């Protein structure tokens, strides 16, 4: 029977049987099992296949420090069996097998190992012809789990959180650290990645119940403490600047901001390296002890314990206490003071072989189990110890990933054969094994020390001075590695890397730790080197005759354990802005388009009309009657104060000091290098008060930049951003005045309200600002009202517009109308390098002003020969083949001579019209230019003066 009779403190609930399938076979586990413990409990030893040679693999760490056991669970790839809670009716298969775990066809690769030394794939497969085939094969062989395209987008509730002291790891030192910090008054959050807190206090017992009792006592104090919040099933995925820690708490990401952090993450027990050290049944001592005490699973019947410290002897005691026959304890150390656990082992009559090592493990049938361990001491004849399991306890590597991420300088300590924190960053503290403290009592003291210091750093109480006694033995062996002519002595289990691979890599010149990592891929597998980096480092040190300190470690980057994208993505907020008339557009059948964060009507659908027809109809409606467009997305700013005009003079290229009150003027803004960045209309409401618009996309940035400039210049004026506060429409068309006169007492005569004038008045009972603008080339009014009256003004205009056949029009129709008028759109008819000269804005450019942004650069540019010019062009009215599109190139004598920036069919003009950048020599009116289409054919067009429509602006004048 593999399951033991009930073990005190076990995590499984025997009253709840959990059925599941693995590789098509049905099994039963208990609630509280992990997938691996359930499978071992059911007598399975083989849980997965290795990455490269497809060797049978079982439990190694049972702690997410290796990926021997990785499953596909339905649509979930790469589920880690060692640490994933068993759930009812899980349907599991091992990843990356070919024909199933049991008879994985790819295991043949193991026999070809000789052909595939480290980096072999760099040395072959690169014939230009064949590589694509090889690559396909490689990609098929690599990769672990499969994604299912049916998986939905899972949105999770991410949250921020805050605490005074965050303690990471609820083992012996972490529990005490949390208690100490809380007692000093700090709000403490204590996390542990396991299902339950307590750490090794719950399983590394050496058959002493007292150890577990002490842990339980500490844990109860923690649970009872009002200032401590304990989060289990929670791991710290990464440490980020200013004590910002990503906590993965079952299915939620918590972004924790702490005032100080205690890292009590313990150590990774390290595997010994000997031939066949990866056989199922060979595991770390801590793994065996977890199986015994958490899951009441007997990991083997007859065990050989390989050790180099007292932890190994405790493991031997735990095993034999739970009925495992311990054949022998093989101690790598020839001479060492026999500690108390060792004496108890001897007392039990267990054989202790000091100064021995395991030369190789002997495989059972098909390499799916262990048959024995061949041991020797290098002097006498080697000996074979029959067993069905080997337990390794040869030392620890600090779980220092978070410490490294926080910028800790680590130092290699000979007496411990371990890296320990040397200089910790402010507010970061370490205790326990990660801090080089291994004896249980000392770990508790160390937790007290760190907890107190962390609380003090967060402003609670004073640092308690506590002396930590030195270790009585070195917990870690400096060279737990045994060479073997036939290899298969694995260092990195993720990547199937053997001792030989490192020797070869170094021989090829990859002899520093970073190059070695990249060439051999050691530590680059899913467990990110937790069980392999330290041994790799020892090997490199030996091969290069350096000390571990000189070799140094590779940088440790987030994540500590991999994090699902659904947790990182969270809900995926995507802010969106709507103008007040949004619902009205929907009612009129708006086809929406995104304009940055805004939703804007592209056009309005009409039954039986296609997109282009609708757009054309809308444009014609504006030309013939009257149209209405929502322009509420325009930036709407105000500048007020004695120096308001001065500010505008400095940021726009034209004059505004001389702008009359009640008038508006076109406004172009450049950056410091003279590139056109934005445009709009500036209106003067009073001597010291201007109201002006920016482009939709420019609004936020322009307001921010003007604020910065004004902060710097300290002019006597203030800027107010009213972009969202005003709703705005443009009422345009021959009938616009007649329509508007129905709704306002304002005198709309050309004399009283001329072209480009600005008036404040009441429209449909709503206080409004009106501007007579000509962007679309018709008599028209831009009407701005408080946003909360946006629907009211829209409804009033629509109602009054009935008798004039008023038609709402969208962005596309407006684009066409402005094109007929030859007005440019910044960002479409300009690009990241366009200056005012390029686009014929000389008329607006006032170089004689004292200063404006971009002026000095434009002085230089003005002296240079022009490179391009934006011009209008038309296609022959009879033209009826395929039409050029925006950004098709203008070709002159085989060379690129420009590009189309805008083009459209103008029903009003009866031909295609457009704007294009061309070389200056092509810019003369009536010049023929050739535009090359996607299909390489060319279309010839004629340069034409703009505006195409109403060149003399008669539409803005009172009909005589």
């Amino acid at each position, binding site marked *: 029977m593999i399951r033991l009779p009930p073990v005190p403190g076990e995590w499984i609930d025997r009253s709840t049987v959990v059925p599941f399938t693995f590789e098509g076979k049905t099994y039963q586990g208990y609630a509280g099992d992990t997938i691996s413990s359930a499978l071992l409990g059911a007598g399975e030893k083989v849980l997965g296949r290795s990455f490269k040679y497809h060797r049978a693999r079982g439990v190694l760490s049972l702690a997410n420090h290796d990926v021997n056991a990785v499953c596909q669970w339905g*649509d979930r790839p790469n589920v880690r069996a060692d640490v994933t809670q068993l759930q009812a009716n899980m349907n599991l298969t091992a990843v990356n097998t070919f024909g199933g775990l049991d008879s994985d066809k790819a295991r043949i690769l193991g026999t070809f190992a000789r052909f595939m030394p480290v980096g072999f794939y760099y040395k072959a497969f690169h014939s230009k012809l064949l590589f694509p085939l090889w690559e396909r094969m490689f990609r098929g062989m690599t990769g672990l789990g499969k994604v*299912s395209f049916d998986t939905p*987008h899972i949105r999770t509730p991410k949250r921020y959180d805050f605490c005074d002291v965050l303690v990471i790891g609820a083992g012996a030192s972490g529990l005490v650290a949390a208690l100490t910090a809380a007692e000093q008054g700090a709000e403490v959050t204590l996390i542990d990645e396991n299902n339950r807190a307590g750490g090794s206090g719950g399983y590394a017992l050496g058959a002493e119940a007292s150890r577990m009792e002490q842990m339980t006592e500490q844990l109860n104090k923690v649970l009872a403490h009002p200032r401590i919040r304990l989060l289990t099933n929670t791991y710290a995925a990464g440490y980020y600047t200013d004590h910002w820690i990503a906590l993965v708490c079952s299915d939620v990401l918590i972004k924790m901001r702490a005032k100080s952090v205690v890292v009590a993450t313990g150590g990774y027990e390290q595997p010994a390296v000997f031939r066949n050290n990866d056989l199922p049944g060979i595991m770390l001592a801590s793994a065996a002890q977890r199986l015994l005490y958490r899951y009441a699973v007997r990991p083997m019947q007859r065990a050989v314990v390989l050790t180099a410290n007292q932890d190994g002897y405790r493991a031997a005691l735990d095993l034999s206490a739970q009925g495992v026959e311990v054949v022998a304890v093989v101690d790598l150390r020839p001479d060492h003071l026999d500690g108390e656990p060792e004496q108890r082992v001897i007392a039990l009559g267990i054989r202790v072989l000091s100064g021995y090592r395991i030369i190789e493990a002997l495989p059972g049938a098909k390499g799916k189990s262990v048959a024995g361990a061949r041991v020797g001491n290098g002097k006498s004849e080697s000996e074979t110890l029959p067993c069905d399991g080997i337990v390794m306890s040869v030392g620890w590597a600090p779980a220092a990933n978070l410490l490294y991420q926080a910028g800790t300088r680590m130092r290699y300590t000979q007496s411990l054969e371990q890296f320990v924190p040397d200089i910790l960053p402010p507010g970061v503290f370490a205790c326990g094994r990660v801090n080089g403290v291994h004896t249980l009592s000392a770990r508790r003291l160390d937790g007290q020390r760190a907890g107190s210091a962390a609380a003090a750093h967060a402003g609670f109480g004073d640092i308690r001075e506590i002396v930590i006694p030195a270790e009585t033995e070195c917990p870690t062996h400096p060279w737990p590695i045994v060479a073997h002519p036939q290899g298969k002595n694995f260092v990195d289990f993720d990547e199937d890397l053997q001792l030989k691979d490192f020797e070869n890599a170094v021989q090829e010149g990859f002899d520093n730790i970073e190059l070695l990592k990249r060439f051999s891929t050691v530590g680059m597998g899913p467990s990110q080197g937790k069980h392999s980096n330290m041994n790799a480092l020892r090997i490199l040190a030996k091969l290069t005759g350096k000390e571990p300190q000189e070799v140094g470690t590779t940088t440790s980057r987030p994540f500590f354990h991999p994090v699902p994208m659904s947790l990182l993505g969270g809900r995926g907020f995507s802010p969106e802005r709507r103008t007040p008339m949004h619902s009205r557009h929907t009612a009129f059948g708006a086809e929406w388009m995104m304009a940055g964060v805004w939703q804007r009507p592209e056009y309005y659908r009409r039954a039986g009309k296609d997109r282009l027809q609708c757009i054309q109809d809308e444009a014609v409606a504006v030309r013939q009657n009257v149209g209405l467009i929502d322009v509420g997305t325009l930036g709407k700013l105000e500048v007020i104060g004695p120096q308001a005009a001065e500010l505008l003079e400095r940021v726009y290229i034209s004059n505004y000091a001389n702008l009359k009150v009640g008038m508006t003027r076109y406004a172009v803004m450049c950056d410091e290098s003279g590139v056109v960045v934005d445009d709009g209309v500036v209106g003067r409401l009073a001597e010291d008060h201007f109201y002006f618009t920016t482009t939709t996309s420019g609004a936020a940035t322009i307001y921010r930049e003007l604020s910065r400039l004004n902060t710097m210049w300290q002019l006597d004026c203030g800027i107010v951003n009213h972009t969202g506060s005003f709703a705005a429409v443009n009422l345009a068309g021959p009938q616009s005045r007649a329509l508007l006169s129905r709704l306002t007492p304002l005198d709309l005569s050309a004399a009283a309200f001329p072209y480009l004038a600005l008036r404040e008045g009441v429209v449909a009972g709503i206080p409004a600002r009106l501007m007579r603008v000509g962007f679309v080339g018709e008599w028209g009014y831009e009407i701005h009202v408080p946003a909360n009256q946006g629907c009211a003004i829209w409804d009033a205009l629509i109602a009054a517009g009935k008798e004039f056949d008023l038609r709402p029009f969208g962005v596309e129709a407006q684009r066409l109308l402005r094109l007929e008028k030859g007005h440019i759109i910044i960002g479409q008819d300009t690009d990241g390098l366009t200056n005012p000269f390029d686009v014929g804005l000389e008329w607006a450019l006032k170089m004689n002003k004292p200063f404006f942004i971009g002026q000095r650069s434009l002085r230089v540019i003005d002296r240079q020969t022009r490179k391009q010019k934006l011009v209008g062009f038309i296609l022959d009215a009879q033209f009826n083949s395929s039409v050029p599109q925006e950004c098709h190139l203008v070709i002159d004598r085989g060379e690129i001579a420009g590009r189309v920036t805008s083009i459209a069919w103008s029903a009003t003009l009866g031909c295609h019209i457009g704007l294009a950048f061309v070389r200056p020599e092509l810019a003369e009116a009536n010049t023929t230019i050739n535009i090359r289409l996607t299909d390489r054919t060319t279309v010839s067009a004629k340069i034409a003066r703009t505006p195409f429509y109403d060149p003399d602006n008669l539409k803005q004048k009172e009909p005589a």
Partner: protein
Amino acid sequence: MPWRLLRFATAKKHPEPRMFTTHSTLKPTYDVVVIGGGGHGLAAAYYLGRDHGITNVAVLEKGYIGGGNTGRNTTIIRSNYLTPEGVKFYDESVNLWKDLSQEFDLNLFYANRGHFTLAHSDSALRTMRWRAEVNKHYGVDSEVVGPDFVKKSVPMIDLSCGGHAPILGALYHAPGSVARHDAVAWGYGRGADQRGAEIHQQTEVLSIDIKGGKVCGVQTSRGYIATNKVLCAVAGFTPRILDMVDLKTPIYIHPLQAMVSEPLKPWLDPILVSGSLHIYVSQSARGELVMGASLDPYELHSTRSTLDFTEGLSAHMLDMFPFLSHVKVMRQWAGMADMTPDFAPVMGKTPIEGFYLDAGWGTWGFKATPVSGKTMAHTVATDKPHPLIHGFSLDRFRNYSLTGEKGAASVGH
């Protein structure tokens, strides 16, 4: 199985020699000193020997070769740029890339996957057409394609991108490829080494000796070197080196971050880039999704990682590929991108005689490794800028004749 692997099986001892010699000391003088043992620096040393017979060359690397942006980028190779200068330059690079594995006799895993730059707005679509037309004009294979074509090539994609960034089309660039980045540095390193150039790792440049406006030497952490020609190819460290020679440039450093998922069975063949969603993604030969986003928002000379990067990128990845919900991000990292105002490099001669600059590689340096090495080698050897890099000279800024590559480079790595 290729025969070449047999020798591994048959040989008693591992039959591979060192890829690069370790030189215990620096020579007192070299004809050319290359600062920076990344892809660009090693490539320049390689072509100096191969094309110009200049072999008395030292490559000084303060860390280990390929340890900078060469080993940190997302390995995308393409030539679908916007400006004629850019297209010609990167097209030459792609041509060199195609033969590198054979030339080096080292498998760089140069994999032609095809490259989509997705357009989520009509203005983006216009830029795509502009790029496609300029590309085709110079014989580069790029086309604007519709959503249907995207769907056909990447059937699992959500064309609506979660509803808030519908894909309106894309620029499809068939030659788009990926390669094993580290191997590129090793290949050029081995080639340069074989031709006599010396690679000195863990060798930091402390100052550059200039007399009468001419370079005459370099002070390193391992001693002084006399030389009249120095090539600076240090990407993210460029401003630190330029500070030594008091040269001002428009280069500013922003971190650029990336992340990889756990290995998955292959499902994504082409390379996908989305400017609006700030995504670029491909699946490596190991099965990992290699993902990047836009630059960090502020200047920083450091390679620290941020959590918000992984959050934002994951959210956008899920908009495009909802089914990745369970896929886990394994590791993130960062590089230092040496950005320029017009998103084009700064290459060639400088006001200091004998000081040559290969910089401003921002987010587009890896793909240029071969051509930058080749053209810089030419420039250093002949003291005349190679024709392909005329558009990239430092003085273009004082002349207000920028190259305007922005439209093609923003998040288009």
